[in-house]
């Protein structure tokens, strides 16, 4: 059905408004979740008091995000005298804008059936659950916006006119640029397998075959997961803001609403990373026997897909939060060694593996003769071998002891 320009514009605007609202709320509640997970890991109770305002109902502390937000809003909007006023304000805005914009190509499910409400005069098409369904370069778009996030960090560090902030900004830009390469290599294997850069197509491919990419590309998943952690600056990669060395890193001089923008953007980066991990490697909205794999699902399957995708994403987020309390932070040289000497070669190995498996003369014939399980076996075998080689050739990459090879020549 062809619709007018107004219909298209209204649909897009409604999606954008809903998504922005949901994501900002989700970020607030993820802060609460992070504090709960931290408390659980450290054997504490965590925030459990704030409930419905002005009553004594506690609700397990679910009112905490509201209290946190109010606290940030009511703080004094203080701008230190020595900062570069324009860039100081621009930096948190730009990082939040980039984080929110990258949700435009991420599917939140597959699609909803048409809605007819005669009383309201509402009549819609089948609704794609993604803001920009016609964008053919979805993954590169996410990639571009994640590289725009560097601006917020560097500018914040520089505009603060503070040595700690500048150091944090410099570290961060080096880290983000370095880990973009393994991130891209982790994506490439999946793109090569499904022959498209659209996240919807990648999802649908895994749903129709019923085999998630993690089953036979574990190496790609490893590289992508580590790089995604580094790109969203989560522990053990949070060097830009490690408080023991840099006070607060690039947002040392920030307080109140502007700091809140930075923190929300950080959480949104993590959410984007979790969505990408699920969609690229864990089948997106697909779950065997529950979601079906038809291209135009009814209400049952459509809602099941949304729920499955959300729950998978939440599981990845909880995993990332647990990682935070499980590993110590890397040193800067370790960070760089890990990116360039471990992750980059591993990513290349994965790319070559996928290319060989999809070559009709080699991988195609092998799969045809011995069955599809050989693909998975080869994937896991190559991953174990490659990791063993990496561990033997770069054993000092993540070792926190002093580097003996620097002193002893």
């Amino acid at each position, binding site marked *: 059905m062809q619709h007018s320009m107004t219909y298209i514009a209204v649909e897009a605007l409604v999606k954008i408004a809903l998504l922005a609202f949901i994501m900002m709320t989700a970020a607030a509640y993820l802060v609460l979740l992070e504090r709960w997970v931290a408390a659980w890991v450290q054997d504490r109770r965590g925030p459990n008091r704030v409930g419905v305002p002005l009553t004594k109902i506690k609700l397990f502390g679910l009112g905490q995000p509201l209290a946190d937000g109010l606290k940030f809003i009511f703080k004094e909007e203080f701008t230190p005298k020595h900062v570069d006023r324009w860039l100081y304000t621009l930096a948190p805005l730009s990082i939040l804008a980039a984080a929110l914009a990258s949700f435009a190509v991420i599917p939140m499910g597959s699609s909803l059936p048409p809605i007819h409400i005669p009383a309201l005069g509402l009549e819609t098409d089948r609704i794609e659950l993604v803001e920009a369904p016609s964008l053919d370069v979805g993954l590169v778009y996410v990639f571009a916006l994640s590289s*725009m996030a560097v601006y917020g960090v560097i500018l914040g560090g520089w505009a603060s006119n503070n040595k700690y902030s500048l150091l944090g900004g410099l570290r961060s830009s080096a880290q983000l640029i370095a880990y973009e390469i393994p991130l891209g290599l982790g994506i490439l294997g999946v793109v090569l397998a499904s022959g498209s850069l659209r996240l919807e197509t990648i999802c649908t491919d895994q749903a129709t075959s019923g085999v998630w990419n993690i089953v036979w590309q574990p190496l790609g998943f490893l590289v992508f997961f580590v790089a995604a952690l580094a790109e969203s600056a989560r522990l053990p990669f949070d060097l830009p803001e490690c408080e023991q060395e840099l006070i607060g890193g690039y947002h040392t001089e920030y307080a109140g609403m502007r700091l809140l923008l930075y923190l929300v953007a950080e959480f949104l980066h993590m959410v984007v990373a979790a969505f990408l991990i699920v969609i690229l490697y864990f089948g997106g909205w697909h779950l065997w026997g529950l979601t079906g794999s038809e291209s135009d699902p009814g209400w049952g399957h459509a809602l099941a897909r949304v729920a499955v995708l959300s729950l998978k994403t939440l599981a990845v987020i909880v995993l990332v939060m647990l990682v935070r309390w499980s590993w110590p932070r890397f040193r800067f040289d370790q960070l760089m060694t890990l990116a360039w000497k471990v992750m980059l070669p591993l990513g290349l190995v994965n790319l070559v593996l996928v290319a060989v498996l999809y070559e009709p003369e080699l991988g195609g014939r092998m799969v045809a003769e011995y069955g599809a399980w050989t693909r998975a076996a080869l994937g896991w075998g190559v991953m174990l071998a490659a990791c063993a080689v990496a561990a033997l050739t770069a054993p000092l990459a993540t070792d926190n002891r002093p580097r003996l090879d620097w002193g002893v020549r």
Partner: protein
Amino acid sequence: MTNLLERLTAWWHAYNVYVALVLVAVGLYLLLPRRRSWGRAAGAVTSVIGMGLLAARSPAFAGFFQQGVFWSLAAVTISAAAATVTFRNPVYCAIWFALALLGTAALFFYQGAQFLGVATVVVYAGAILVTFLFVLMLANPKGQAYYDRISWEAWLAAPAAAVLLGVMTVALARGLPAIDPAVPAGSPDFPVPAVSVARAMSQPRVEEILATDHMAHLGGQLFSRYLLAIEIAGTLLLVALVGAVAIVVHEQRSRATVDAAHPTAGHALTPAALAAGRTQHDSQFAGAGANIHE
């Protein structure tokens, strides 16, 4: 009296391009950061008037309200580009340049060239400009060194920019008298002088660009028709990468001989070791840029 008025009007129709060019050149000259601080507002006004005169000649200007998105994007891009060359603080220049790149990417999107738009952001705004910014911030542009903060050869740069702008405006205004999708290129109603413009406007090409699986089309073109260019560019980047590594290795070797001559310098955190680590990182950034570029 009427005769004089007619002659003036005729003169204006014949020569308003040149008037616009002079206005743009003078305005740009006044805007460029110099040792004096006066005249920047006047320069802004003059160059905007000149650009307006040039823009009025463009046939596409007719559908102003239908193409509101395009014109606002174009305005953002052009003013950001102007700000890039006219601001004094190099960091601000870099930020304006980033905005100009984003505007260009948005224009690409608007024309359906999705990959070009995204690639502009990834390569230029995301990688190259970030490296610029990195250097600019370390170079402390807030120092007293005025030679970093003024533009040199402004009297050459401003006329050159104006002439380039004028040539492109005139060529577009003469070459494309009516951009009408109903009129096919090459027909007598659509006399297009330049071959490339004809090819760019022809129907199959537009369909190819706007096709839904346009990434697949682009990849097919790159790795069949333009394979040689891709291979050459890749080899060039590889050579640059190998060269950077070779320089680093050479430096480290010469340092090692110096350290061997002075055995006390072999401690873990000597400035030499730190510097060696730093050069290594620098070369890695070069590699990062090259890889993304490829």
